[in-house]
């Protein structure tokens, strides 16, 4: 009861805050949501891997970078639009993920947990530097007309293309939730994640499940890579900052809480854009990301101790 009332209060407060923002600084909300969509869409696949396979994939961002390069050169060669490349890229990266899992991560799963961390760190270096060697550090960007799609409300004009990330984030979050709670494979994956030993005893092939989850996550990363290409220029280091941000968002939402990543992203996206909208606080927008993460984690740990 108490818990429910608190949720209701929080919901009411956030709706009130959002409404106030729409009236006062509509762009904060628009750009905040767009930023949040991108954060969440990239973080969700990492959350899936962390929640079930229990590894922090430090090469997460690099995987997206690889996908974006694959999509770019695929599109260039075939004259495709990156949007058309989403599905093929997802398939390619899923296969790539499966192979990487079988060749490397699988072998490290029995070792101490930290080994997986350092293994993926090594992979991240190898991936980004290999791309650097082949394609140099110069940036590539698809010139696309539709990414400048514009909308006017009153006297403000803003870009609408980035809302596509919001849509993708929602699809990822609810698609995955559906997959994990309603399908047999998904339920099995969750069971394996919660209790690998138990799952092995009842005859589930744990490594196969892990491999599939990893491949699924990379498929989502691949789809995001192609989509990311519409909006951003690509270069060897383009992915790495997303690893840390995603990791932070997942910690903020709580491990295993995939829809929570959406909430965390919205909070951070809007808060950042709120600070950016005012001259005195402009330069401090970045700090809010880290401060909020610490506050949320500390608050949750305090609450956890009380109960």
């Amino acid at each position, binding site marked *: 009861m108490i818990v429910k009332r608190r949720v209701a209060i929080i919901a009411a407060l956030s709706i009130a805050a959002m409404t106030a923002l729409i009236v006062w600084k509509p762009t904060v909300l628009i750009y905040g949501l767009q930023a949040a969509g991108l954060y969440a869409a990239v973080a969700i696949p990492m959350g899936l891997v962390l929640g079930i396979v229990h590894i922090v994939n430090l090469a997460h961002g690099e995987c997206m970078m690889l996908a974006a390069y694959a999509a770019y050169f695929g599109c260039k060669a075939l004259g495709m639009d990156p949007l058309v490349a989403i599905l093929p890229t997802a398939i390619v990266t899923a296969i790539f993920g499966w192979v990487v899992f079988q060749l490397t991560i699988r072998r490290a799963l029995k070792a101490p947990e930290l080994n997986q961390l350092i293994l993926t760190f090594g992979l991240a270096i190898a991936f980004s530097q290999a791309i650097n060697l082949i394609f140099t550090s110069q940036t590539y960007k698809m010139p696309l007309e539709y990414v*400048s799609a514009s909308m006017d409300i009153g006297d403000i004009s803003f870009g609408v293309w980035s809302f596509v990330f919001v849509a993708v984030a929602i699809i990822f979050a609810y698609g995955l939730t559906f997959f994990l709670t309603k399908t047999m494979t998904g339920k099995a994956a969750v069971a394996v994640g919660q209790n690998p030993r138990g799952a092995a005893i009842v005859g589930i092939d744990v490594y196969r499940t892990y491999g599939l989850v990893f491949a699924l996550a990379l498929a989502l990363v691949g789809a995001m890579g192609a989509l990311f290409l519409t909006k*951003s220029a690509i270069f060897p280091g*383009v992915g790495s900052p997303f690893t840390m941000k995603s990791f932070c968002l997942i910690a903020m939402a709580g491990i295993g809480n995939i829809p929570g990543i959406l909430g965390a992203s919205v909070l951070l996206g809007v808060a950042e854009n709120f600070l950016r909208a005012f001259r005195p606080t402009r330069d401090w927008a970045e700090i809010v990301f880290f401060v909020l993460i610490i506050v949320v984690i500390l608050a949750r740990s305090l609450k956890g101790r009380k109960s």
Partner: protein
Amino acid sequence: MKRGMFALAVLALFVGSAYAQGTIKIGGIWTLADITGKQGSAAAQLAVDEINAAGGVLGKKLELIVVDDEGKADKAAAAVEKLATVDKVDVFVGGMASGAELGKIPAFKKYNKVVMATGAAGSATVEKALGPSPESDFYFHLHPWDYNQGASYAEGWNAIQQKYPNIQIKKIFLAYEEGAFGKSSWDATKVLFGGDKRYTIDGASFKSALLGGGDYTAVLEAAKAFKPDLFIWAGYDADALPLLEQSKAMKFSPGIYLGAPPGWPIDFGASKLSPNVMLYGMWSTAMNNNNPSSAKFFKNYVAKYKEEPATYFAPLAYSAVYILADGIKAAGTTETTALVKALEATKYASPLGETITFKPSNIIKHQGITRQKILQWQNGEQQVIWPFEAATAAPVYPFPAWK
């Protein structure tokens, strides 16, 4: 192109001992994973090959030994030590990021050999760390300092407004990336344009996509509210197109839209948004038409590496080697005092379109290039607008409003 790189790598490895007696050794330090360092080192090697083909210097061959600094101060310091003590190079060339350059300076000072620096624009740190003459006399800073760049832009815009009365600039907005590069641009802009009563200036920072940012909405909102005549962004190549696309989406179309990145993305000129975007730079392929030195450099570079030089760091490094070679010829030795004296008399007609000489800057005694150029993307190519003596085209104004 791959083969060229490989050849260079092999050369750097094996040539060393073979020619030990009859060579003049140049130690090159760049960040090789970066396009600027990769092409800078390649261009320097091109210059070395050309000079050797023409008979070398003082009857000796030149030899370039390249070591990567990985953009890190400690690795850069190790690179200097290795070149100075293991390879026993006679002179140094290279440099790009100020952070790595700062790591080299203590070691450079220790060895007191001539350094021809192709990068490091940060006056607040690098120039300060070098210190005044005579302790920094060995250091020849080819690249302009940040304040040189600022001053030359102020000069350029004055000249352009005089020559083309239809171009009127009163309000300037600078969107600067939040790192050292953008911040020093902003500092220089504030000092140079802010002191001038004709201009009102404003600025805001953004996080470059290169450093994990890429969200330009807030900075463009601020710019749009300011309604500038001249909008400048100081960021990196990764920001170029996304920034334009976002500007179009937000219907922000200033009279002059200008970018000041160290390099531009591949195929930028092919974008429909690129026409009439202006830029700050030092060199463009258009200069091949009216500058023989540039044409020669370009032709030989493409012939050797099967790719076009993508940044001005390539001709800059190329020039650095020629300047050193000329200086050594004039001095008859690589001994520092004599070589410094000879280099002080340098007059080198560079592919960058200006004759390079060395003059004192705010702190150090040997500053090379001080002027940058104002260019414009026209029909997919960068055309030089100012300085007028190097101009390859007239400016198109205003920047077309989004249709």
